[in-house]
């Protein structure tokens, strides 16, 4: 994949339409609104599934832009990147192309929680995404601002009150129709920018605000409940003005690990990687924050901000008297800008300058672009199905920050899944859902649609109950095969590679399992291995590989004839050996959850009058969230075990009734015949 060089940006721009009148067609299967991480993945996924797809973005140049931090992956987020890649998405390969500093976080804490992460070259990343979209068949890109969403009467055979039929652009006269529309508007939905005491409409500095028409349609026409969230970004610092000798150098991994299962190496050569720098806040920073609070209207607003990506203001206010980390991250190979992670702030620009200069390494620093805050609308995601479709509106899908999440990886994951389902819906195939027992994407979507959000949602490994099974190393086995066989979003090339990997691993594991020796013989074969003396039983290769000080390489050199040809997977085999017993223990619990997830709750159920014994509170929760499955209902906050039992019994009873009536139907027909 990396051999292919992306074409120059200019050629990309020349190939896309800047006006809707240039479009070949006025009818698409899927229209994706927004060109960020969610939108690009959605458009590419919809096209891969086979839908004629149109991507509409306000500004062609910003498609694939990294609006905030120049990095991808991390703990929990890295798992999402691996999973998006396993489903043939873009961001993993884009990261491998654009990365300039690769590291595996949590390297010493166990493979299940390893966090692959990279600092990115902003320009390279954008170029890669744009070139991928360009070379994707069935995908058209159009510049424009969506003014209106057309909806009509619903298809009576499916649930919902409305059906989406297309869009109209702000400057375009003709409507463009589509069976499915994916909205990935990011922070642009009724977005406002904050800096100091000034407030202006917009979703990102330097870009025009999106039209108010869309958010009006969502709220007024479709009656969707929305909420307001806030986020922020730090000032960008001129690199030459920073005294990096006063900060700690953090080098990248000497052997960069690519995100994508298709790549064996990264575009950036190991020795060409750039370092990051770590420095800390001082009491002076806290003083500046306190002195300027009255000039800072963003921090005084009550929209919910994230607890884990707080501005420097909320950090020092919440944890006073401490020093806080500030990472200085490169923005690209040729960029003269540093990104100070941890210094997101919304005070007036002159105060921002005073603040950063309180940090020794930046005592003479210059600001390239000041930081600012954003407030934006999100649609309460409990109104979505696990396919990310708005329950009340057929064909309308939402992904990314519009669903209350934060982060590129979270957006990309939802975008991909929304795009897949938008395409399947348009092509009259059933929508598909990912279980939280098989993927972080499933955890993310299940958390969103069944619990909702109260603050911007970010992925953590602790959100995944089955973390030991959902590892970054096995995302391909978990998702690529299914992605090809059941979902249709994976190319045959990637599928064949995943099949090869699966078969090789199975073969190697079987060989290891068949390799049974007595303890004495193992000791002879592996003299360096420490093995407890008392054991005198047979141990298999799998057992031995579980030992902390045994590597697959050691076994392969002891048994070259049967193991050496599996060296390609030495690390994965070691991880499999260690984790397999724990994963087997989890299997029953996973099966239980999958059963509950398979037990769907009728969507037309009236919880307020349901003739079963449920408390008022529980009825209200159920009525508000309308969980799609019993599994989702059990995870709702405020649900009681007793309520679940009643619900279960009710669903079972009604299910039986339905089955019985189904059984009766053919009988009736036969009766008629005999008459």
């Amino acid at each position, binding site marked *: 994949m990396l051999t292919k060089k992306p074409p120059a940006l200019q050629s990309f721009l020349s190939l896309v339409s800047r006006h809707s009148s240039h479009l070949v067609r006025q009818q698409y299967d899927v229209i994706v609104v927004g060109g960020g991480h969610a939108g690009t993945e959605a458009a590419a996924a919809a096209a891969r599934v086979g839908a004629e797809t149109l991507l509409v973005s306000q500004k062609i140049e910003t498609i694939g832009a990294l609006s905030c*931090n120049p990095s991808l992956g991390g703990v929990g987020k890295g798992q999402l990147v691996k999973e998006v890649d396993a489903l043939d998405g873009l961001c993993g390969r884009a990261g491998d192309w654009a990365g300039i500093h690769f590291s595996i976080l949590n390297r010493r804490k166990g493979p299940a929680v390893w966090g692959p992460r990279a600092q990115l070259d902003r320009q390279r990343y954008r170029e890669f995404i744009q070139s991928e979209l360009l070379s994707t068949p069935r995908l058209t890109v159009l510049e424009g601002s969506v003014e209106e969403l057309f909806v009509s009467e619903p298809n009576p055979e499916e649930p919902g009150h409305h059906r989406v039929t297309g869009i109209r652009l702000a400057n375009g006269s003709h409507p463009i129709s589509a069976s499915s529309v994916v909205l990935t508007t990011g922070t642009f939905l009724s977005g406002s920018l904050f800096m100091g005491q000034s407030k202006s409409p917009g979703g990102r500095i330097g870009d025009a605000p999106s039209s108010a028409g869309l958010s009006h349609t969502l709220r007024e026409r479709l009656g969707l409940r929305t909420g307001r969230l806030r986020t922020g970004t730090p000032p960008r610092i001129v690199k030459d003005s920073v005294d990096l000798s006063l900060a700690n150098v953090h080098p990248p991994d000497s052997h960069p690990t690519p995100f994508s299962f298709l790549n064996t190496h990264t575009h950036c050569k190991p020795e060409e990687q750039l370092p990051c720098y770590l420095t800390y806040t001082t009491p002076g920073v806290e003083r500046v924050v306190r002195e300027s609070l009255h000039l800072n209207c963003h921090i005084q607003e009550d929209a919910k901000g994230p607890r884990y990506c707080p501005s420097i203001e909320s950090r020092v206010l919440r944890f006073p008297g401490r020093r806080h*980390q500030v990472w200085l991250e490169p923005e690209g190979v040729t960029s003269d800008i540093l990104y100070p992670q941890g210094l997101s702030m919304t005070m007036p620009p002159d105060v921002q300058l005073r603040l950063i200069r309180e940090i020794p390494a930046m005592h003479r620093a210059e600001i390239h672009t000041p930081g600012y805050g954003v407030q934006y609308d999100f649609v309460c995601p409990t109104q979505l199905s696990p396919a990310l479709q708005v329950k009340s509106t057929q064909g309308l899908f939402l992904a990314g920050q519009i669903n209350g999440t934060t982060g590129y990886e979270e957006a990309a994951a939802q975008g991909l899944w929304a795009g897949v389902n938008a395409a399947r819906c348009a092509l009259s195939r059933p929508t598909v859902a990912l279980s939280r027992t098989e993927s972080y994407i499933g955890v993310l979507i299940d958390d969103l649609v069944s619990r909702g959000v109260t603050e911007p949602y970010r992925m*953590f490994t602790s959100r995944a109950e089955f973390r030991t099974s959902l590892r970054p190393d096995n995302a391909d086995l978990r998702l690529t095969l299914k992605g090809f066989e059941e979902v249709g979003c994976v190319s045959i090339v990637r599928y064949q590679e995943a099949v090869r990997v699966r078969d090789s691993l199975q073969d190697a594991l079987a060989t290891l399992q068949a390799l049974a020796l007595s303890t004495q013989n193992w000791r002879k074969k592996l003299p360096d291995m420490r093995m407890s003396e008392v054991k005198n039983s047979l141990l298999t290769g799998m057992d031995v590989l579980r030992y902390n000080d045994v590597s697959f390489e050691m076994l392969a050199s002891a048994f070259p004839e049967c193991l050496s040809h599996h060296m390609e997977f030495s690390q994965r085999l070691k991880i499999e050996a260690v984790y397999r017993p724990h994963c087997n223990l989890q299997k029953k619990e996973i099966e239980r959850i999958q059963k509950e997830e398979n037990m769907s709750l009728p969507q037309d159920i009236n919880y307020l009058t349901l003739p079963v014994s449920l408390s008022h509170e529980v009825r209200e929760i159920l009525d508000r969230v309308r969980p799609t499955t019993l599994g989702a209902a059990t995870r709702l906050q405020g649900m009681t075990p007793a309520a679940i039992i009643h619900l279960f019994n009710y669903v079972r009873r009604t299910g039986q009734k339905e089955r019985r009536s189904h059984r009766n139907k053919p009988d009736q027909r036969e009766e008629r015949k005999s008459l």
Partner: protein
Amino acid sequence: MKCLVSNHMIMLPSMFRGIWRAAVGNLRTRRTPARRLVSTCDGVQVGLADAETIFALSSGHGRCGVAVVRASGPASSTALRCMTRLTRNLPPPRKALLRSITDPQSKEVLDRGLVFWFPGSVPGMRPAEAGEFTRRAFQAGKLGLTEVEGLGDLIHAETEAQRRQALRQMSGDLGRLYQDWSHKLKRCLAHVEAFIDFSEDELIEDGVLNQVDTWVCDLQAEIERHLQDERRGERLRTGVQVVIAGAANAGKSSLLNTLCQRPAAIVSPIAGTTRDIVETALDIGGFPVLLSDTAGLRESPDLVEREGVRRARERVDQADLTLVVVDCAHLPSDAEQAATFLEGHLRSVLSPQEQPESVFPAERSLLVLNKTDLLPEEQRLELDWELRRVSGLPPVCHISCHTNEGLQDFLAVLHRSVKTLCGDPLSCAPTLTQARHRAHLQQCFAALAQYQRYRDIDLALAAEGVRLALTSLGRITGHVGAEEILDIIFKDFCIGK
């Protein structure tokens, strides 16, 4: 009558134990199929994914003339077929069927009883134990799980001490203890998770894990102490198992009859009259006691009597308290020799046969010297004096079942022992009252060991240990979600991006 209901069975109380053991053996050895009929969502069972087949004596111990044994879960049909020899078909649903109930391994007939089969009635799901009132209170969030169980006990409380314990549990002592542990575990997990999810990017103070190490250690010790309460709470709930044992014709059955004030067991001057176990339920000073009379321990050519002796020994092994009855008339007249004889005798009665040299637990037995009316006063005093010099002997009581002499003193000693075995429900730490709690706490304890095993090797697997521990405890106290853990992380740490 007992009733094997498979889900269930009815049989004679004296036979109950055999069937019980057979059921235990059967269900434990048979692997439950991984297939699960239904998901349980009952708070009691949330997370009990492993669709275990459960069985219980549903009708309470002792006292009742009819016993109901209920089994439920995926293997219950197998258990039913194996124990009733219905190899081909299950009994017709919801109809009583009279069957011989047999040991599934030895094929030995244990009893005859009525068998009922209730197919697939909410399979795998435990019906509410308490009544509608309790369920509603629970549902309305007015009672925690342990409190609901306490209420169930209260409804069934037969003795004063049981009632006090039930009240105590209901007011939430046990609930509070488990909640406290759950809170500590949540904190442990939150700190490990913070270290996993944030330490690379954040200032997570050094020593976070060391702190967790200490908490886990303390918690393990606390749970272990609680588990080692010697089954006191359970005993109080189900009754203390007191077994009368000793040589043939020592007066064991007379003692049983004296204690329960009715001729429950046949007594005769003929050695070897009692051949099987005779059980009766008693209330000793407010504590529930299940008293069993056993066959006299002696070598016998009689097959039936040999089986009786085997059962007697088995019962002694399982007893909470053994009353070793000795016929005074058979003691050597020399006091010193008598003391040596008693020591040897106790050992032969109490020690497991395979380890005759092992030390018998003196606090788990009472030495009852019966027929004291046949012993001259002088000899008795001499013997007492001699016995006091021997260390490690259990308390000694002189009684005469014939004249009731010494009975009051004996009852006082017995009461003291039973009380110690049950623990005073009002004075000490809350005790375990449910076997189910014990099982979950044991899982919790084992899971914490996983944390320690992996602490320095693989933190993800170590955290999994704490998570499993919390899940096990959650089966008693209620489910703990990821969001709660994150809340603690954000409260305890200064987390940025």
